[in-house]
């Protein structure tokens, strides 16, 4: 393994935190979705790294599954974004707080 495991984990953590900050801070629904993708990819990176570190194939299989799952998720989420945009003519997350207590 060329890249040390520690670097890889640090990179994955930074990516994850960036994605998390994006999800928490943005008000635009599409940007929130992008943040989620970034967080997922950070996790994928960790899995691939771990797979290489321990020389086992499970982690990479898992990443393949996650790619499939992510593409499905994105297609559904974007469809919902379009639907919400039609409904309120806005994709600002503050306009969709009907579930408040």
């Amino acid at each position, binding site marked *: 393994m060329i890249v040390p495991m520690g670097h890889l984990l640090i990179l994955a953590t930074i990516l994850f935190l960036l994605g998390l900050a994006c999800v*928490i*801070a943005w008000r635009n629904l599409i940007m*929130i979705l992008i943040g989620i993708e970034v967080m997922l990819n950070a996790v994928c990176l960790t899995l691939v790294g771990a797979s290489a570190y321990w020389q086992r194939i499970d982690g990479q299989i898992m990443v393949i599954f996650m790619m499939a799952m992510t593409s499905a998720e994105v297609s559904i989420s974007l469809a919902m974004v379009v639907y919400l945009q039609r409904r309120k003519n806005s994709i600002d*997350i*503050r306009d969709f*707080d*009907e*579930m408040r*207590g």
Partner: protein
Amino acid sequence: MALLLTLTLLLPLAGGVFISCFGERVAKPIPVVVSCAAVIASFLTCLGAFSAAGEGLRVVLFSWLKSGSFQADVGLHFDPLAAIMALMVTGVASLIHLYAAGYMHDDPDQSRFFALLNLFVFAMLAIVLADNLLLMFLGWEGVGFCSYGLIGFWYRKTENANAGRKAFIVTRIGDLFFTVAVLWLFKLFGTLSIETINARAGELGLVTVTILGLLLLLGACGKSAQLPLMTWLADAMAGPTPVSALIHAATMVTAGVYLLSRLFPLVSLSPVAMGAIAIVGVVTALYAASCAVGQREIKRVLAYSTMSQVGYMFMAVGVGSVSAAMFHLLTHAFFKSLLFMGAGCIINLAGHENDIHLMGGMRKRSKPVFLLFMAGLICLAGFPLSGGFFSKDQILATAFAHGDPFHLAIYAVGILTAAITSFYSFRLAYLVFAGDYRGEEQGHAPSGLMIWPLVPLALFGLAGGLINLPHLFGGHSWLADWLGQGEEEFHLSVHSEYLLIATAIAVFLIGLILAHLRYRRFREPAERVVGRFLLSGWYFDGLYERILVRPFLYLCRFVWVGGEQGVVEGIVYGFGRTFTHWGKLLRLMTNGRISTYLQGFVWGLLVIIGWFLLRSVA
């Protein structure tokens, strides 16, 4: 005999229960007939059992309460005192029931009236015949309840309902003292049997007996409308007239006298209690007589006069003569129920007008009513040789015979009261009967059913002296002998007896002459301070209002506003408000934004990571 006695008690109860249950469903005259029949039958059975009273008849119906050493039977004790009282109660009640049948003829609520009236007779007989204090107390409360129900009989007018409530509450104050006395007697003797208590009263210390005597006196004061618990009786006149005649003249108000006579062996052991009884009696007699002078409503005059006459009976007990008290109780029951029922007739004649200043000329309207009412009035005023004359004279003579300054003072106040009594009696007579009619209402003549029951009462009242005719007049003091008190009565020389009788006649004449001079021709009386003072009963109502009712209301308001609304509701609502407030704060966390929730996740994650870090460091 036992059966007859039991029937005497139970017939009015049966009548009352029957009318309360079925009175509304049966045809109209049936409740009236049942009620009258029950009481008259009760009178007849009482008359039948009368001969057994000499030896004392005891009937135990069943055991009412039994717990450990405590036992209270529903038991009847028919001794001479109870017999004479029961006979009077049932007899007068029979006549008043007949009168009420005429008086209440058009009232839509007849069955309620007669049910209560019958229950009242039952409760009164329970007081009279009870052989233990608990049963007596049951009757005592029973008459209080019936009195309440009957004073407020026309409850749609607020002042009637209020008068009923006032009577009930004021007598309850007296009942409280009676209750304390009963419980204390039970603690002392372990039994409530009247006979045992009387027999063993000598074992008690003087202080105990004195306090017991005073407690019983206060209990009696409440029922008998004596000072200081007398304010209810004048207002009780809001009830129908037969009720005033039966309850507030003849029977219930004399229950206090009967109680003291019943427990006389106990009460008489304490000179202080006896003195207190005499003072209460004589002061009430004077107070009420003075108030009667100032009243304008015919029934209120009679109410105050009742209070005054019951005061005489208390005085008789206080000076140690049960027979004089019972003698006056009997004659008073006859002539005062006669007067009340006569007043009912007069009010009918005057077109339901109560004010004697708006009457006058009633003699021309109905001769029989005039004669009957005058028969009652001269008994009340103490016309020589009438029943009231002898009974009042005997009380005064007993007081006089003691000879010491205290009893002479009581005698003096008593004789002054007799003069005032004569004055207000004839004031009433002149205002009601003399001159021309001053009112505008056109009255209607009373029916025969309202006249005839008065005749026997008038005869009994006038000839009432015969049942206890003093030896001086050739009698044998039958009543005193019958009550077993013949020997221990007072001894006066013939000379002083004549002197007392002359004094009694003299004060009667003084009252008559004064009333004649003042009221022979009607003059509209000027509004004066004294008149208002007497009319309002010495402002006792206002006084009690100020020193008792208002402070009580303030206390209630304090407890309500300060205690209930301030403390209790403060605590409960405080809890509620606190949790609502916190709930609102917690609600802010669920603001519907995903980012906020995610922040929660992040904070949680940080806490978990921090926790693991701390653990790995430690």
